[in-house]
């Protein structure tokens, strides 16, 4: 339920971001083209129905992110997940000025926001906000794409669309940023033209009155946000407090790892640079991290709901656990990886469909090497 909610809210937000970025891409043509495109591409979310949906999605998604941070036992076992969480947390402070300027500001002043004004702010009046905005765009896009790909990788249709979906992930932000650059150049080139700059002047006059209030609100939101994150981390620390027993995980074709308990099998393996397939990013969806437990069944916590579902869906045999979900509680465990660490999503899908399994690499116990 949680993961479904997360992906739905994320997809809604993603649709909006795509629309917004494509609007920016029209800046490659002209600023008025941006205005026109914006009416269609961002329109669905700026009416009384779409707007609240977007806002609810945003809050749901953010809350679920904090929820994950709270429940994650190790925040630094997998750099990609760590980065994903950090990016997600960074979005709010990065994006806040933009929201203040384009959503809260117009709501307070009643002035309809226009692209010339926003561009003028970013390229001329407050250039450091321009930096912040570009960084925010990149952060949002990377966060969104990473989450989306993790979700899509384990879908049935993924193999067919994988290769064609990658260029899309690059073209959208690149054209958007280039549109941003080009429209900024147009703006700067025409800054002496009073007729061209008329909307900017109007907006500047309107914002002049509410600027202090906006700043005030912004800093308050930031403080509350920081406090919220601190609270979540504190709660997590309290949850994890306590003695952890020692565990020993032995891979039949790999190393033996000794650690304190409190981490999943996958996290334990990854913390010691042991390569392990985990296509869905340790979300318990794909089953590619499955291991056969040879000894020490009793030393693993019983399967949770997610794990049981995935095991049933993939019809995995008895004695097989998902490394990303199985928690060693203490004592020795001997396991064997079912899938090669190098397996690609396409190969995995083929494997599930019952096609010829790819030959396992001759040396599966390799250390985790540099991977682009």
């Amino acid at each position: 339920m949680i993961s479904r909610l997360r992906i739905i809210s994320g997809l809604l937000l993603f649709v909006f971001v795509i629309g917004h970025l494509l609007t920016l891409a029209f800046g490659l043509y002209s600023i008025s083209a941006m205005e026109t495109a914006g009416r269609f591409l961002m329109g669905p979310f700026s009416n009384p129905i779409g707007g609240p949906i977007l806002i609810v999605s945003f809050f749901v998604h953010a809350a679920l992110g904090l929820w994950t941070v709270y429940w994650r036992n190790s925040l630094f076992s997998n750099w990609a997940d760590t980065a994903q969480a950090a990016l997600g947390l960074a979005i709010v402070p990065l994006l806040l000025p933009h929201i203040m300027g384009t959503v809260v500001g117009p709501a307070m002043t009643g002035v309809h926001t226009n692209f010339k004004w926003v561009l003028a702010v970013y390229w001329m009046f407050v250039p450091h906000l321009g930096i912040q905005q570009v960084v925010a765009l990149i952060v949002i896009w990377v966060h969104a794409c990473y989450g989306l790909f993790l979700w899509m990788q384990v879908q049935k249709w993924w193999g067919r669309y994988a290769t064609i979906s990658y260029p899309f992930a690059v073209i959208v932000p690149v054209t958007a940023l280039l549109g941003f650059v080009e429209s900024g150049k147009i703006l700067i080139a025409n800054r002496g033209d009073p007729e061209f700059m008329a909307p900017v002047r109007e907006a500047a006059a309107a914002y002049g009155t509410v600027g202090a209030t906006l700043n005030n609100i912004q800093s308050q939101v930031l403080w509350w946000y920081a406090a919220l994150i601190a609270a979540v981390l504190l709660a997590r620390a309290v949850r994890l407090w306590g003695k952890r027993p020692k565990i020993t995980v032995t891979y039949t074709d790999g190393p033996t790892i000794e650690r304190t308990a409190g981490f999943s099998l996958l996290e334990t393996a990854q913390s010691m640079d042991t390569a392990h397939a985990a296509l869905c990013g340790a979300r318990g969806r794909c089953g590619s991290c499955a291991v056969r437990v040879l000894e020490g069944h009793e030393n693993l916590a019983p399967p949770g709901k997610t794990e049981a579902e995935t095991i049933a869906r993939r019809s995995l045999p008895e004695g097989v656990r998902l490394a990303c979900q199985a928690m060693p509680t203490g004592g020795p465990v001997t396991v064997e990886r079912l899938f090669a660490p190098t397996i690609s999503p396409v190969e995995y899908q083929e494997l599930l469909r019952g096609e010829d399994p790819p030959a396992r690499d001759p040396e599966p116990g390799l250390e985790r090497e540099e991977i682009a």
Partner: protein
Amino acid sequence: MIRLFFALVFLGFLHTSTPLSAQMMLPGGTATETAETPAEPSPNDIKELARLLADPTVVNWLQQRAAGLGEDGASTNLTFRESIELGLIQIQVRVQEVGAALVLLPNIPSIVSTTWQEGLTPREQLNFVVLLIIFVFVGVGLEWLYWRYAGYLRRRIELTRSNRYIDKVRSALTRLALVSGGAVFFSLGTIGTFVIFDWPPNAEEFVLELLFALVMLRVVSALALFALAPRIEALRLVPLSRQDARGLYLGVMLASAVMLFGHGLAETIVVLGADEPAGLTIDIIAAALTTVLAILLLWLMHTRSEPKRLSIAAPVVGSLVLFMLFIFWLIGAYSAAGTLAVVALLIPTERLVRKTIEQAFEESRAEAQSEQVSADETLAAAEEAGAEAEAVVEPDAAAEAEAPGEAEQEAITNAEAIHGVYLPVAVRLGRFVVVVAAVVCIGLFWGVQPWNMSATNSTPAQVVRVLIDIMVAFLIGDLIWTATKTAIDRRMASMPKLVPGMAPGPEARMATLLPLIKKVVLVTILVMVGLIGLSSMGINITPLLAGAGVVGLAVGFGAQALVRDIVSGVFFLIDDAFRVGEYIEMGDIRGTVESMSIRSLQLRHHRGAVHTIPFGELKSLTNYSRDWVMMKLEFRVPFDTDLKLAKKIVKKIDAELQENPEYGGNFLQPLKFQGVRRMEEFNMVVGVKFMTKPGGQWTIRRDAYQRIRDEFEKAGINFAQRNVKVEVVGADELDEDTKEKAAAAAMDAIEQNVEGQATG
């Protein structure tokens, strides 16, 4: 030790790969680039230029101009003195510039900040940061896209362990291609998209410089990754430990980053309006920092190496070389700097190449062995299974298991022989390539094109030409000599040692020929290399050759017999007429071949005398030591002998002799009773024969005679003795005295008869 040299290699590589040293490499290049960087041409201009370049008449004109320029360049050959003077003047100018730049050194931070603030408004500064972020993101995005498609291939390569060196090289090359592809996409995304936009003059120079530095850094990183593979043992081409490779990689990246970004900064502030000396100062700072970093890296590698080194000569020399390089660059002696770098890199590069080749051979040999071992294991396993099934035939299984073991041994020695022969040759070849490349590089630094040397006539060109000729001749000679020597030495070492008493095998002939060939090859190579060296120095060697020919003729006539001996000796050896250790006979001389020289043969007579026979004297000879010897024995027995009994006895003796541990194995055919050979007046002659290996017949004959005599005696067979029966008619009536007299007379007659027969 070797690690330090690797460090040097890579630092040297770094020096040559950065834009700064790109300048350095230009002989007599100007100190810095001109200050006025022309404005970026508009797209229209570029289109116009492209249109003009496509016009054939324009192309023709350009080609003619270029040819004219080339002629001019060839005709203005400077004399040695002039070129030195020119170089000194250039150095003077450069030193003055550097002096002016060094004066600015304390003010550099303020110069940079004022230039930055005066050249750009705060808004522009921040806008440029935005641009930088955007275009780096575009580059990263394109590269990410590239890795989506190439990434799995790369991971495959990185996770696959290849055993053979050639596979390793192939994987590393594939990875280099992949990584370079990534760098290409990155540069496409950054610089490519950036230059599409139409920017106002100078405004984008700053961004472009930084992007360019980033792209260059990627290139350096790809190359360093290719050679060092800091994290993947299986792809590392140089014999370094993981730790060392990582340290070296980081050092190289850090030093190149300092160099590249320093240079980028220098260019930028000159573009933004600072003075040229300020740019030079930043360049100097960057170069100095790089040098210091390189020296630090050198010492770090030295101290961190696991086997503690006693000698600190390598890092000291390395530091000195780096420092000298920096100084040379500073005073603008680029040719000298290049030469120094090449010379300093020569030894480490040679070692690196040698180590790499050795590693390659070692790995492929180990692989051959492991294959053999695994094959053996499977065999053994199969046999084990068989043995379990039939535990009764255990000895058989054990005996069978030995056979593949021997085969394996043989395969290993085989592989070792191949590697042993080719390894020194490969090492020499590697050295040859390295030295030639170094000489070519040095030649290029001094404006001498080795492939175009006939066109230039300057003194250094001639010196270089002579040096190259001599060196190439020497190295090729060395190569041939090593190849021959190792081949011959290994061949001789693999020959079984001559065991006294045993018949020598066919290798004995080669044992005679090979040292001879070796000496001949050595002398020939020495003479040829010497002659080539003399001829390339400009000494006319035709009289020498002619003189040698005349002397050769005279000596040839004088030493006709000697030549005949040598030549016929070679042919006897080729005919395989005799070998060392064989018993031969020629005319009335016989004996065991003790030694063969180039001219003569020495025989040891079995009584100890040594005969020396020149090969030329040999007409025909008899060899008693080949393949088999047939021995025939004869006995005289009385007519009433029981031949069947005799045959039985001989058969029994044969069985006994065959059992004898000392010579029983020498029998090729058993001792056979041949029956009666012929009848004589008073007895019959029976024959016995046997066949043995050469040299084994004597002891067998001795024992055979002895036993046959004893056994015959036991069986009551007496050998026929020469006796005379004198029949006297009417002897019954004679008295004893007369009988004796008659007997004595008959005795005399017989003796006389016998003597007469003997003398007659």
